[in-house]
């Protein structure tokens, strides 16, 4: 055979090479500009060991109060995520290609979802703390908005990807738009809805534990107080319990996703 083997790597073009060099330069500059140095690591490492040392053994004298606070946090997450999911569905229908009643409505719904998604949850939390006051209600609203930003987009995509055939079959029967959405699109998209909803619960639980740092309710405030008072052993208890909660929620979510797929 007279066929020569192709080269293992393609030679990069001028544009590709320039981009590569620029990216490499930017990464190096990023390290310099954020001021991370070996010195930080040298000083930081013993400090980490010291704090960790003061965390153990964790102080469990107040565990009843912490568990109760954790439960409240979890409930705040659930309430926010349920509200968010309920509102996500209509917004997603308005935002989905082929389901939205009008292009202007579609763009508006997509804009709203994008706004909810791109502004970080802590910023929403600050906004709601200012508007509705300190405490769980601000946290619930934050999680709701965060859920709409995430689920709205995935619900819309899931509905756009459903079987066109059954939609057309119903259209040819003379079904209404809502009839088609509820009897074909939503049943078809259901596994995807459930998977997305479970991700939202996990995400909400993770974010609910930090919302307290800015006063939006939940266990985060206990964590902040413990650190502020240098009660690292109490903080350790809180962190371990948060860890257990998040892992349990993720495992439960994983298990349920496998069942619906």
């Amino acid at each position: 055979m007279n066929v020569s083997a192709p080269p293992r790597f393609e030679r990069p073009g001028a544009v590709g090479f320039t981009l590569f060099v620029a990216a490499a330069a930017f990464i190096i500059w990023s390290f310099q500009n954020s001021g991370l140095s070996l010195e930080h690591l040298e000083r930081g490492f013993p400090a980490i060991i010291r704090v960790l040392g003061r965390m153990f053994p964790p102080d469990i004298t107040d565990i009843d109060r912490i568990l109760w606070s954790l439960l409240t946090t979890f409930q705040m997450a659930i309430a926010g995520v349920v509200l968010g999911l309920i509102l996500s569905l209509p917004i997603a229908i308005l935002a989905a290609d082929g389901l939205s009643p009008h292009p202007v409505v579609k763009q508006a719904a997509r804009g709203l979802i994008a706004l909810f998604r791109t502004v970080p949850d802590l910023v929403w939390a600050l906004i709601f703390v200012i508007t509705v006051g300190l405490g769980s209600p601000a946290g619930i609203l934050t999680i709701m908005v965060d859920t709409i930003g995430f689920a709205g987009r995935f619900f819309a995509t899931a509905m756009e990807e459903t079987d066109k055939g059954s939609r057309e079959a119903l259209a040819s029967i003379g079904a209404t738009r809502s009839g088609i959405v509820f009897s074909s699109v939503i049943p078809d998209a259901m596994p995807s809805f459930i998977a997305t909803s479970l991700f939202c619960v996990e995400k909400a639980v993770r974010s609910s534990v930090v919302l307290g740092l800015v006063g939006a309710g939940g266990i985060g405030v206990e964590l902040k107080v413990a650190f502020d008072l240098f009660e690292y052993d109490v903080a350790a208890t809180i962190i371990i319990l948060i860890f257990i909660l998040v892992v349990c929620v993720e495992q439960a979510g994983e298990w349920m996703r496998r069942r619906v797929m």
Partner: protein
Amino acid sequence: MSAAQANPALGVVPSHAIRLAGVAKTFGDVPVFSGIDLTINTGEAVAIIGSNGTGKSTLLRALNGLNPIDAGSVEVLGASVHALKGDALRRLRARIGFVFQKHFLVSRLCALSNVIHGMQARRSGPQVWAQWCAPAAAREEALACLQRVGLADKAMQRVDSLSGGQSQRVAIARMLMQRPEIILADEPAASLDPRAGDEVMELLFHLSREAGRTLVFVSHDMEHAVRYSDRIIGLSGGGIALDISATEARPQELTGFFAKPAAETADRPRAVYSGAAAA
């Protein structure tokens, strides 16, 4: 009018169910057909044959407005299909059953729910979204439709667990639930094995005959075209190139229609080709 059709003895049935005049359709700059004139009588069973890409599906889908047309008029059940919009179009579609090559059922729902969807021709709202929220009368009617296609025992089974032939029969039950006056079917047997295909065609033919419904189906199976129709229409070169009574036709002769070079029929797009005379 639908009452009159349910009781042909009243005698006020309009003589034609479908009338096309000068219908033309072009996709981009590819002409599919031009100047199709065709009248189909009420209660008639018509088979449409023709090579791939001659526009059979496009024509069928123009009959209930699923595909738009560029020129001409399509009159179905006395209404000008392409002049209708919104509710008026939906009301007309409700009277026209359509069976596709693929069953196009909602795969995650059970057979009964899918059949109940056929009721969306007559009413809207949550009662016709799924079997569990449907009123008892609707569930009974849907079960009767399933029984009609021999699948009453599969009512609660999810349709993605049914065979292709069974799914197609569920789709026919859904169409029956619609109580249509016209049945359109685009290669309803094409993705089925010969036996299931025969059953489906037999069923469609029988269902149209027993209630005096008009049947228009597309088929690549010449046996089916001859056996289950009164009249065979062949599309070629952008027009109707064959229009014969099914009693005159024999499957082997019809196969000759496809052997005809496309260019020859394209010169005389609307000439009537008689399979019997050519033999």
